[in-house]
């Protein structure tokens, strides 16, 4: 295991120290809970608080989206493991200013449970918390079972929209409605080309044979829909784009935001090659790309692979997507 770490059981602690030191202008770590990262903008003006959380190893997700006009506080878990209920609860407390908290997170058993318990704690304190649970990964369950689908890179759009809405001064219900709309309008799928290794384990939990790829793989190596011969970027894009388009369905004439993310070890060059193929297919279908993101936006340690996320836009979502944002994972000047 070729790794730049000190102690495989303390990678999250060690990483958080470096993260706080590097981004002290954007965020701080909660004084009483080292597993909660709080935006320095969180309470600069009175607004709905935006909270998320999840396991570590997906950088920039989740802490990398904490900052101006996006997420206000993040509960940080172990590698690929949900944060504690207390961390979610402390995150709620840190950002509640009486307007309530929108907890925007991904659909994983552990996160669902820990958020649920944290909400019970918050209720005792009269903090109003409402949730949106991202379920954009079309490969993780049939459309009929949409509520079982897990959340993947589409969460970034959910945070961007929810964060922007809150920054605009919207009420909790408005923020929740916008974030829910964002994720309802979003579909994702991923492909894995090689596995990754949780430092404390020392070896990969699964393998992907050379020359094959796992179509529909999850962010923690959850099984995909099928293992196939590794094709060209064009072939990969075709199958992934088709799955995503048909599921929603995205229709000719609609405007979309596209996000292509590498899973960690995929050269960014390849991500642009893949994106180009996706964009050509969308163009053919009459779907218009309003804005696109390509890069390592939501990773799985050093997994090799790529994810595709598409969100259908309306005027409200466009305004949110375009808003200025400043986080480690995404910084955007106000659209000219």
């Amino acid at each position, binding site marked *: 295991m070729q790794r730049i770490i000190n102690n495989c059981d303390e990678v999250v602690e060690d990483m958080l120290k470096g993260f706080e030191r590097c981004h002290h202008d954007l965020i701080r770590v909660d004084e009483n809970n080292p597993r909660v990262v709080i935006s320095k903008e969180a309470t600069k003006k009175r607004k709905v608080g935006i909270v998320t959380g999840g396991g570590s190893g997906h950088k920039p997700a989740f802490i990398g989206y904490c900052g101006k006009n996006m997420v206000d506080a993040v509960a940080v878990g172990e590698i690929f493991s*949900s944060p*504690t*209920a*207390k961390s979610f609860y402390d995150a709620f407390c840190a950002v509640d200013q009486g307007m309530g908290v929108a907890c925007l997170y991904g659909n994983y*058993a552990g996160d*669902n449970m820990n958020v*649920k318990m944290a909400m019970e704690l918050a209720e005792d304190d009269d903090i109003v918390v409402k949730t949106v649970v991202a379920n954009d990964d079309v490969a993780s369950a049939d459309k009929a079972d949409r509520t079982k689908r897990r959340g993947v890179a589409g969460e970034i759009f959910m945070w961007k929209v929810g964060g922007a809405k809150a920054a605009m001064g919207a009420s909790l219900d408005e923020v929740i409605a916008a974030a829910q709309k964002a994720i309802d309008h979003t579909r994702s799928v991923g492909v894995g080309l090689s596995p990754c290794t949780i430092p404390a*384990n020392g070896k990969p939990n699964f393998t992907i044979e050379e020359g094959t790829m796992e179509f529909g793989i999850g962010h*923690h190596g959850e*099984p995909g829909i099928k293992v196939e011969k590794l094709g060209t970027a064009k072939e990969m894009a075709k199958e992934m784009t088709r799955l995503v388009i048909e599921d929603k369905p995205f229709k000719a004439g609609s405007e979309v935001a596209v996000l292509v993310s590498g899973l960690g070890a995929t050269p960014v060059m390849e991500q642009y090659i893949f994106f180009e193929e996706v964009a050509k297919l969308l163009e053919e279908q009459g779907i218009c790309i309003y804005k696109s993101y390509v890069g390592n936006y939501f990773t799985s340690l050093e997994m090799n692979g790529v994810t595709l996320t598409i969100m259908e836009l309306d005027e409200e979502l466009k305004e949110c997507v375009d808003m200025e944002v400043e986080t480690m994972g995404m910084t955007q000047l106000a659209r000219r």
Partner: protein
Amino acid sequence: METLRNQGNAGIVLQVIDAIHEQASYLSEIDGATGDGDHGINMNKGFMMAKERIEPSDSFAEALKILGRTLVMDIGGSMGPIYGTMFSKLSRVLKKAEPITKEAFLEALENAVQGLMDLAGAKVGDKTLVDTIYPACQAYQAAMKQDAEFSQCLREMAKGAEAGKESTKDLVAKIGRAARLGERSRGHLDAGATSCWIILTTMANAMLAQLQSRE
């Protein structure tokens, strides 16, 4: 009638904690076959953290509450809230019972199983700890229906847990990391089912040793 003193019986919970601590590497080994090999580490971390917070003079219910709360608040993952809920629910029913009767313990157990299943969303047959605790609870219930003594109910519960744990060997995982393996998960015990069996049998034995008979 056999009953259990609530007061001063934190030792039962401490024995459960010690059992998990002793079996930690065995649990990780099992998890290694189908998961990521850290179940023992995860469990041990939370249980040992609770150990420091429990006083031997605490009541059984109080100790269960501390363990449950520690797991829920400080462990995270899936195991934190699942086992945390289980112990918290046990505690909530038992806290007013003194002494604890077999009826009170059944209510507590049913509450724990229900709370845990509601939270986890796992069903019998998914190859999780539910496959241990659900049949364990059923075995206890069945013994109660036949008017068995508290001690007999606890023995049946332990047997049910053991059978349930063993049943996971032939199951295909539908939930958690082991689901990754599909058919290949068959033939291996489930780690959570095994830790749950250790918890329930240790608890049953520790309770048996403390049962008091009175007319």
